[in-house]
């Protein structure tokens, strides 16, 4: 007895995996919207420094952002390679994706290390610290979750457990999540490093 019914031509019926992942992404977007609104609400407010323009450096973040955005394209290449059955290419593109994502996390660590130990800015220092670490931190947390998911897929690929016909859609859905993490970063970057640093 199969749970699946053949989709007749009478009505539009999307795949349940796609709908499920789209819903998850929508929920995550509204979650981040809350933190972005809080950040925008509090720009320029706060009783004490340090202030964003004293401590934030845009240039290294731009480089990290480029790495994260590039990883969106490499993951597309990896999904396409799996779809065509080129498992070796799929593994290399995926490894590159993970490397670029890890670079981004490393960049965040370097930035935070400077902020915490050189400028003494923590979550509890002032409103800027509160909103900055929570917004950027939740994004970094999502990148790490994405990296764990991608690494799992890479592990399965290395063990030779991936079947293009069965797994391409699944991999594509995970890649949707990765694109989402990327798009959120565009909004976070705009909020923190462009709007937040405006004179």
């Amino acid at each position, binding site marked *: 007895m199969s*749970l699946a019914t053949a989709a007749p031509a009478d*009505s539009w019926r999307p*795949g349940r995996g796609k*709908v499920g992942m789209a819903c998850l992404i929508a*929920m995550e977007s509204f*979650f981040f919207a809350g933190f972005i609104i809080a950040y925008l609400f*509090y720009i320029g407010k*706060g009783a004490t420094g340090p202030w964003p323009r004293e401590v934030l450096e845009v240039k290294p973040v731009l480089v990290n952002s480029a790495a994260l955005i590039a990883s969106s394209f490499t993951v597309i290449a990896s999904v396409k390679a799996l779809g065509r059955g080129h498992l070796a290419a799929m593994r290399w593109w995926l490894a590159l994706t993970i490397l670029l994502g890890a670079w981004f996390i490393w960049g965040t660590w370097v930035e935070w290390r400077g902020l915490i130990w050189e400028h003494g800015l923590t979550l509890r220092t002032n409103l800027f610290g509160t909103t900055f670490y929570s917004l950027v931190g939740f994004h970094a947390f999502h990148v790490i979750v994405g990296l764990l998911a991608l690494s799992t897929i890479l592990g399965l690929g290395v063990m030779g457990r991936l079947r293009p016909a069965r797994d391409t859609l699944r991999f594509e859905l995970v890649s949707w999540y990765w694109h989402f993490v990327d798009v959120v970063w565009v909004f976070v970057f705009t909020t923190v490093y462009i709007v937040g640093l405006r004179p």
Partner: protein
Amino acid sequence: MSTLHAQPESVARQGLMERLHGWAITVDHKRLGIMYILSGLVFFVVAGLEATAMRMQLIRPLNDFLTPQGFNQMFTMHGTTMVFLVGMPVLLGFGNFLIPLMIGARDMAFPRLNAFGFWLFLFGGALLYFSWLGGDGLYGAGGAPDVGWFAYSPLTSKTFSRGNSTDYWILGIMVSGFGSMTTAINFLATILCMRCPGMTLMRLPLMAWMMLVVAVLVITAIPVLTAAQVMLLLDRSLGAHFFDPQQEGSAVLWQHLFWFFGHPEVYILILPAFGFLSEIVPVFSRKVIFGYPLMVAATVAIAFISLGVWVHHMFVVGLPPWMNALFAASTFLISVPTGIKIFNWLGTMWGGRIRFETPMLFCTGFLAMFLIGGLTGIMLAVVPFTTQLSDSYFVVGHFHYVLFGGTVFGIFAAIFYWYPKATGRMLDERLGKWAFWILLIGFNVVFLPMHFSGLLGMPRRIYTYQPDRGWEIWNLITTLGVPIQILGVALIVWNMVRSLGKGRVAGDDPWDAWTLEWATSSPPPEWNFDRIPTVTSARPLWDRKNPHDPDEEQP
């Protein structure tokens, strides 16, 4: 199929522990739906007892039945429980039970995720109630949360809310919120992807349409509440300053974030009840629902507008007048699609051969009571009116007419209507009618006087009052209505327990209804349908019963 039919006999031979184990590990949408509804009803009784304690305290001026802090805990737990642990699980439980049956599917799109969501909800509820024991924390201050169900800042800061009670409020609601979100994913994926052949979106039962829209609202609104609660948790646990006025943090931001969730939440609680009415009223009027496409359009419009009305909860905060005016206008606007729905149900009843059995009685009661709540809602959308009556008992009366006279009456209608499908037995009709009239009278005795005490200036959330304000008589009447309501609810509970063994055997289709859940046996087999049905109109069972006169599709 022969092996499948052998299953129920083996179930019957199981012992109690095995049967309980079967419920604990189930991923069957029907069992999960029933568990949602039953645990919701248990919390309903608990929240009712909390309300009773409050009414005992307010029966006369300067009473000392409860301490001030105990009173604060009662209204906080009552509100939080009713919204998050009664309204949402019972309504989502009906969605769980009914959606696959109504759309001709064998289960939800993600059955295991469904079970996960239920257990998250129950764990969240347990966490909230554990605060009675664990809320004291290291400070020895606390107990149950006492900050109100909307937990306004800075009352929730570590300074004013010592101990762990507020943390339990945050975590309990957050965890059960995760459960609601997984359910919303499931509803959307199931309704969009699992419909049986021929079930186009415009042939979808209206209940399923409402649940689809509710799922969209859950996905939009709950994550914002989660974000706000995470901020509060960071404030309380890690010393962040989101809502800390000493560091120029803003109490108003909490209100914006909370009510951005809070007002769609009201529609999350009422739209499923609209869905129940849209199924029950046509069947008991023996007519097709009046204006199906308009009903769908009105639901979508309500959901859309409900995301832009939240500031009407904040008219006395001191926001700029243009903002108040804008949100007053959007609030007036949302009454238009809601009014359309009321006229559609009336239009369905108009000229129909109405059978006033208990489900229909509750639906009729819903229409009248919800109308009153809707009209006082329009009054409260007027900014100067709210300036006078914000946070008064008038508001308490208003939202109880919407949520009790509306949602809870809708839930009781649904219980009487679908109990035969879930159990195979009919609820007792005579007990049901008694329960309805007692509840209707008790409800009005309790909540109508609140409008008057509110107009006379009695604020909500005060634990006692002076004898010279002219509020005594209204408070006395309100409290005297409580035992009437308790009797009504007790009759329904008794009816549900008694009919399980003694009720008349229902058969597949006791109401002569038209949607697919009545095409399978009562209770339905685990796989719902032996053969996946094919439908050609919005009333598949009408077509089957009247092959000479099938529903015509509107072009």
